[in-house]
């Protein structure tokens, strides 16, 4: 401990809680939650967590599985001090503790990576990490933080530029920053809430090996997911929640997919198979498009592509290769510096988002909470974001509340969205998957002629993924053209008719989905020419 700063950083934890600093034995129970109950009275009548038992052992990866709205995030938030609990006890290494704030939790060695991003967008990666440190030293040497960050990102293979500002980063990159931010505190228990939703398969794989490595170091890892493959790939034990109730905890090696599916949602679910497209006229045409990124550097560098009616074009690529900017340029949210966007043959380059939407385009954006919804407004108000100007949603500048209610109720039942009260609850309290369903419902109910969707099934449980895939295929059959941007190759393959690979702002290859091979696409995404 020669470095005074390091001393400063670690002194607090060490000095205050010597018990925690002791290195845990392998297999020791690090955190145990007993009879946890959580309700939101006045919002929900039932308990969101109904007397749950849950524990994490040193050296294990513990998967937490459940449908959208099952209460996974709430449970994680309670363990990491973001929510208080209504009833129950939490023990850390056998000692009862009361966790009142995220800071308490960090001091006890529990850190959480949230499902949604919690980064300050105008600040750099390093600054964001420094923000979370509990020292209030004004002359904080950022270079120290940066050094440790570099070391961590090398150690765990999480590639990030510490000097980049958050708003310049793609979702996948931001995810890495979120993980680094928590790792910086070297927690003994790391909770990750759906960390793989926006990662490519390779990234997810490397994340799992990181998690394994962390478990080997004697930490406990809790890992929330919807994907069964990930459970088997990464975890030692698995706990299943269903609508707030504990269904069971078991050794991963002693269970199988069938059993988990049954526990989680009562029966096997198979994704629909796509049928060959009957393509029509060109719906969306992008010609030699150039777009600048947030920092003014070229992000899209000469992309041309076409999507025809009745066809789904999948854009595969690792986050940060220009797909966000491409989508924003097409939908009118970002300026096109060169090139053309034609929609149904009409030049819509640099037209307003409204004009473009009025051409009959639905847009499922990348960041559902930041752009896709107004979280402080009610659920009903979020349902009409794109339609409020149309009759019968409004008549002569007055909103038609009865119709809006009726419409929203229909959306809610068609898409199975968990909403306590249309006109009272703020949208922020919906679970991640339920917000995604809301956006999907809003952008597709009117059967648009063209859909631009960025990872549309992000955070959805298997049932909802199935529902969404069916929806996209149904719309395709009816002649809708779809531009599907995703890092999830499985999704790209199961929906697309053609696949284009984007790398560093250019399309490096386009091919028929039937002829494409996952392996080859993966290589192209990483930069090798097709």
């Amino acid at each position, binding site marked *: 401990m020669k470095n005074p700063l390091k001393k400063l950083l670690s002194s607090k934890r060490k000095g205050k809680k010597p018990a925690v600093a002791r290195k845990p034995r392998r297999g020791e129970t690090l955190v145990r939650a007993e009879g946890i109950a959580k309700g939101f009275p*006045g919002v929900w009548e039932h308990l969101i967590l109904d007397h749950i038992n849950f524990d994490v052992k040193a050296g294990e990866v513990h998967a937490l599985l459940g449908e959208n709205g099952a209460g996974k995030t709430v449970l994680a938030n309670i363990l990491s001090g973001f929510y208080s609990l209504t009833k129950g006890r939490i023990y850390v290494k056998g000692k009862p503790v009361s966790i009142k704030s995220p800071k308490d939790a960090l001091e006890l060695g529990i850190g959480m990576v949230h499902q949604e991003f919690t980064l300050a967008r105008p600040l750099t990666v390093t600054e964001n990490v420094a923000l979370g440190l509990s020292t209030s030293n004004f002359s904080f040497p950022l270079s120290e933080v940066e050094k440790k960050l570099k070391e961590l990102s090398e150690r765990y293979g999480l590639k990030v530029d510490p000097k980049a500002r958050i708003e310049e980063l793609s979702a996948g990159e931001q995810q890495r920053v979120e993980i680094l931010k928590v790792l910086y505190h070297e927690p003994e228990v790391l909770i990750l809430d759906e960390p793989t939703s926006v990662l490519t398969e390779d990234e997810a794989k490397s994340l799992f090996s990181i998690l394994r490595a962390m478990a080997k170091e004697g930490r406990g890892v809790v890992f929330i997911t919807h994907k069964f493959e990930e459970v088997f790939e990464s975890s030692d034990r698995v706990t299943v929640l269903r609508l707030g109730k504990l269904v069971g905890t078991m050794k991963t090696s002693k269970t199988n997919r069938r059993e988990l599916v049954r526990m989680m949602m009562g029966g096997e679910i198979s994704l629909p198979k796509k049928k060959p497209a009957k393509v029509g006229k060109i719906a969306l045409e992008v010609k030699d498009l150039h777009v600048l990124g947030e920092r003014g550097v070229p992000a899209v560098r000469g992309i041309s592509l076409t999507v025809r009616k009745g066809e789904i074009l999948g854009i595969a690529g690792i986050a940060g290769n220009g797909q966000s900017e491409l989508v924003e340029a097409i*939908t*009118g*949210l*970002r*300026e*096109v510096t060169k090139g053309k966007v034609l929609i149904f043959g009409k030049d819509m380059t*640099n*037209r*307003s*988002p*409204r*004009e473009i*939407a*009025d051409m009959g385009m639905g*847009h499922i*954006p990348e960041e559902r909470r*930041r*752009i*896709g*919804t*107004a*979280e*402080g*407004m009610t659920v009903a*108000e979020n349902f*009409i*974001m*794109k339609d*409020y*100007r149309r009759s019968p949603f*409004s008549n002569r*500048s*007055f*909103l038609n*509340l*009865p119709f809006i209610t009726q419409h929203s109720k229909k959306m809610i039942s068609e898409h199975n969205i968990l909403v306590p009260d249309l006109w*009272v609850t703020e949208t922020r309290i919906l679970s991640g998957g339920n917000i995604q369903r809301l956006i999907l419902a809003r952008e597709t109910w009117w059967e648009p002629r063209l859909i631009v969707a960025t990872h549309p099934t992000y955070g959805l449980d298997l049932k909802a993924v199935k529902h969404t895939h069916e929806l996209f295929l149904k719309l395709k059959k009816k002649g809708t053209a779809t531009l599907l941007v995703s890092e999830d190759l499985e999704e790209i393959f199961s929906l697309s008719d053609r696949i284009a690979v984007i790398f560093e702002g250019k399309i490096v290859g386009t091919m028929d989905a039937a002829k494409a091979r996952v392996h080859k696409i993966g290589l192209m995404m990483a930069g090798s020419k097709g």
Partner: protein
Amino acid sequence: MPRLFDAIREYLGTLKRSLAESLFALLIGLLIGAGLMLAFGYDPIMGYISMLKGFGIFTIEGFLAVLAIIALGLLLAAFIGAYWAKIPQALARLWRKKISGRSISLVAIVVFILFLISRMLEFLDNVELMEMLAYSVPLMLTAITFAVGMRAGIFNIGAEGQVYMGAVAAAWIGGHFALPTGLHLLAATAFAMLIGAAWALLPAILKIRAGVHEVISTIMLNWVAFFHVPYLIINRFAGVHAERTATILPTARYPILGASLTAVIFVALAACVVVYILLWRTRAGYELRLVGDNPDAARYAGINIRRAILISFIIGGMAAGLAGASQVIGRPLLGWTLPATLGTVFGLGFSGIGIAVIGRNHPIGGIFAALLFAGMLNGAKFMEYDWGISSELVVAIQGVIIIALAIPALLAMSRRGVRRLKIRRGPR
């Protein structure tokens, strides 16, 4: 009827949290205020009893009556909330003499509650009650200015200057033109609102066109108005006295209801309701709130953010202009005139900020916050008369109470975090 009970329960349920918070905050504010009085050697209990006189409460019965009125008011609000759409229909049916048991009972309940409230009022001191109401008029209006700004994500603190402009505009029309009764009143009111809006237009345009932050521009314009309006009064609009405007002609005065309360209160209340409807029931209001809640989502939804900002400034300016007018043609202060010291309008705009915060940036919440504030203002004189508590100390006590009341709302706002509204360059 079971539906009614459900509605009441539901309404109280939604109110419970904020109501409890506000009451708790009020208690803390009162305690600190009591501490202040003790520190300066006054009896806090007697001091507060004198303050209650400002609300028209002179007796125990009066106090109970106020509690009863509050309870009845909540009941009425719950009832109207539950039958929001049906009451006008019921009235229309009665009007057309298509009497059904249902519509009669609907209207009868509303009338009965109103009747009960009017009976309760008899236990209060009429003069002071009206005085309190008179104080509340400009405050509920300037609260709108700030609240509508906040709803659109704008920190509009320009109400102060817009009030001055509205006041002098009303004084000009009211004192220098001979127009028929009715029309004169209308013209003076409308012109004041117009000038208030025009004064708000400047920061709006600066914001929209050049991205100038509204806090800076509105503060500067407040000062411009502060110096410009006295100039206008003395050099252009003075009457017999050089330092005040010509007396408002009788044709431009709102009729007096009692004490210094005039019919302008109905205009103010109507303005609150109109703004409420505008914000929550119209497309424009929806756009405005969406911009305030999440400008990125608003852009994504295809909303013209600039237009929404402009609308919020205009509504705010009109409300502030009306507030100014209410002190000139709607209140017999100094014999219906506006003094060059601006003493009768000074500070109304700034008070509106606190009131808006206490009223949770809601035009209807603002009415109640304004009444509370007005009662305290009006009670100040009794604290001074009865116990000789110096007016500065009274202001300090009021300030403490207001700050305490504002804290829950401020906390809620900060928890939510204010999203920075950026005017982006890009395709339109």
